């Protein structure tokens, strides 16, 4: 979808932290970055859905990205952030360990995900980017969001 046409262009991304790795999401999708706040649990949904929060009078689903990617959980702390995404009016948010940076990534620097990264999450990854001595994993947001909608419809 959007991914293929964007391949040619440079990307502006937000870099965030999960465990000891750095990930990147295109800045276009990000509506805001929030500090951790109370989340209401939703019964009977997938474990990685933390619940919903009141984001300025809009009910927004919150997803724990650590759980989503099968990384062991950790206590929320001062650095914990909630990335609020908005795609075509649908809001969704990710809990991450910290939001670090905003940067430009030349499209040419995106490389296919190495096989060994693998795991259940592989299909949501768009590729890896090596810039100087940092390595970012670029998320394929369309696919992550799509999966959510599919699940909700099922």
């Amino acid at each position, binding site marked *: 979808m959007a991914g293929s046409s964007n391949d040619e262009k440079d990307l502006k991304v937000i870099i965030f932290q999960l465990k000891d790795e750095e990930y990147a999401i295109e800045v276009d999708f990000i509506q805001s970055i929030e500090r951790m706040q109370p989340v209401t649990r939703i019964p009977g949904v997938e474990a990685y859905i933390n619940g*919903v929060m*009141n984001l300025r009078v809009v009910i927004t689903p919150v997803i724990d990205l650590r759980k989503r990617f099968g990384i062991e959980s950790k206590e929320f702390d001062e650095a914990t952030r909630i990335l609020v995404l908005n795609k075509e009016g649908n809001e969704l948010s990710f809990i991450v360990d910290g939001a670090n940076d905003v940067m430009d990534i030349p499209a040419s620097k995106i490389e296919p995900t190495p096989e060994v990264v693998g795991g259940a999450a592989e299909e949501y990854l768009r590729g890896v980017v090596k810039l100087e001595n940092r390595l970012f994993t670029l998320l394929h947001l369309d696919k992550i969001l799509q999966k959510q909608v599919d699940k909700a419809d099922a």
Partner: protein
Amino acid sequence: MSQSQYLEVFIDESQEHLQAINDNLLQLEKEPGDLSIVGEIFRSAHTLKGMGATMGYEDLAHLTHNMENVLDLIRNDQLEVTSHVMDVVFEAVDDLEEIIVDISNGGDGKQDVNEVVKHLETLQGLEPAPSEEQAAKAEAVQPANTINENYDEYEWTVLAQSQEQGYQAYQIQISLDEKTMLKAARVYMVFEVLEQIGDVIKSTPSADELEEEKFDFTFVVTLLTTTEADEIKQRILKVSEISSVYIEIVNIDQYKENTTKEKNQGKEKAKSPAKKQEKPKKKESSPGKKGTELNKTIRVNIDRLDVLMNLFEELVIDRGRLEQISSELNNTELNETVERMSRISGDLQEIILNMRMMPVDQVFNRFPRMVRSLSKELGKKVNLEIIGAETELDRTIIDEIGDPLVHLIRNSIDHGIEHPDVRKSSGKPEEGTVELRAYHSGNHVFIEIKDDGAGINKEKVINKALENGVVTEEDLEKMTDQQMYGLLFASGFSTAEEVTDVSGRGVGLDVVRSTFESLGGVVTVDSELGKGSLFSIQLPLTLSIIDVMLVEVAEEKYAVPLTAIVETAIVNKEEVYSAHNQKVIDFRGKVVPLVFLHEIFQVPAEETDNEFYSLVIINKGEKVAGLVVDSLIGQHDIVLKSLGNYLSNVFAISGATILGDGQVALIVDTNALIK
């Protein structure tokens, strides 16, 4: 650009006129002799034509113009109202509808109307010799009539009075040359001439419209004068670019005859002119236009109402917060102020909700037309009865129920009502009846679709359900008849043996049900083989702000809609019995099953050793259950918010709300908890 601001008004009004035309046409079909209906249709069509021409939608204007001609023939008894004529006119209305839809979707309203126009023209050419009697009548009443000016009673009075004073009334039809460049200027000159010799009391189109050149090339004026017809004609023809002038004497005697026929009216006319003036008012108040003029209304864009509603929702949330703060601080003055504010905002809430209420007529009014064409298509005879169209519902709900209702009505006609010969042989009247009824009951609105058709074949439903794996044999044993009919709504289910043109398109009944359920509604179906079926839909009055009972389960708060609550109760654990591994209580002589919310919602909590259970007794139709919670917090007005697209199908949760302290509380879908 300047047009865009009128476009919305144009679309709204066109839709109203089209609806009026549709309604009246259906009425006319039932009472072909009632020419006053034709007049109504004519009026709507005429306005539509004028509006279309003004906005530059030529196809629209062209088509309505031809339709008008046909209506005119009907009005003058020169064309009989046959099924064929109605079909052609309906066809024209269909095209008009398409044009309007196209325009409202941002299109240019261009459409190939040639075929329909041809049909309409054929009708005009046909003039299938009306019965001699009728022809003679038409002839006697209006000899060689080409002008059809309508006067209201007030105008007739003026005409009659002026005749008594020796004036003669003429209808003058003036046609401009088709090449005329400045039509308004010609009109102005004609009026100049006429006013030298008499008084113009009426013109069609109106003087304003003439000034704005809102007419083709012909207009009609009514002139009171002492000048002879011939001289008038000569004078008008002196204005350049006039192609023809046709003059006719207004037959006032005819009017007098008509009025004296109506018993009392004649006396009133002579005695009190004051009463006379009341009369047309009364008479005219029923057709939409004048009615709306009388009770003062404004059209508000629905988006603005939505903004108002959203702002109000935020206010309600803050109100909750204020109430909480004031009860914590316990300051008398603050308490009083907050109380007052709560009361006022409560009133305000009612007003806003009322503003959003609309009669279901908005949805129902499209059905007669649909039923007519559908029954033609299927070769069935169907009479649609609509009851309670004035019942009001929140606009958000009205917007949603149209399509599923269409589906249910189609379903009734397609699968329910039998073909006329089948009906005859089973001793039923050939014409089937579909009854569409809406009514209020408590905090709900019910919509029912009832037909006297073949009913639902239970065996077929069961076989199909087993075949598709929707149920097992075991399940079936426990099911009531109603529940079995309910299988029709299971997804991927269709009992139609052949996919007809009607049932093959669009969605299945499962989509119908889920649409209603997403609105907080409940759909049930009942049927008797050979006698007919009844689909019943229960809907909440409004979606946005609801009354709930807030309850606590361990650390979590849930909201239970008050509409589902019978009452609350506290029972001792000793009063709880176990029946086949199901906890039940004896509640007022009835065995009521208990639903433990902390189990259903897997609330993380330690076992508490409380001697009592707090219960919220809920119902769904006849069935009752008791929700076990830890404590009852109290009754609150809350703003219902959806969980969004990502969390659309959470079991037993119908939405969420934001409490006064900013916390999110989930709203329990009690319907899902009662099987």
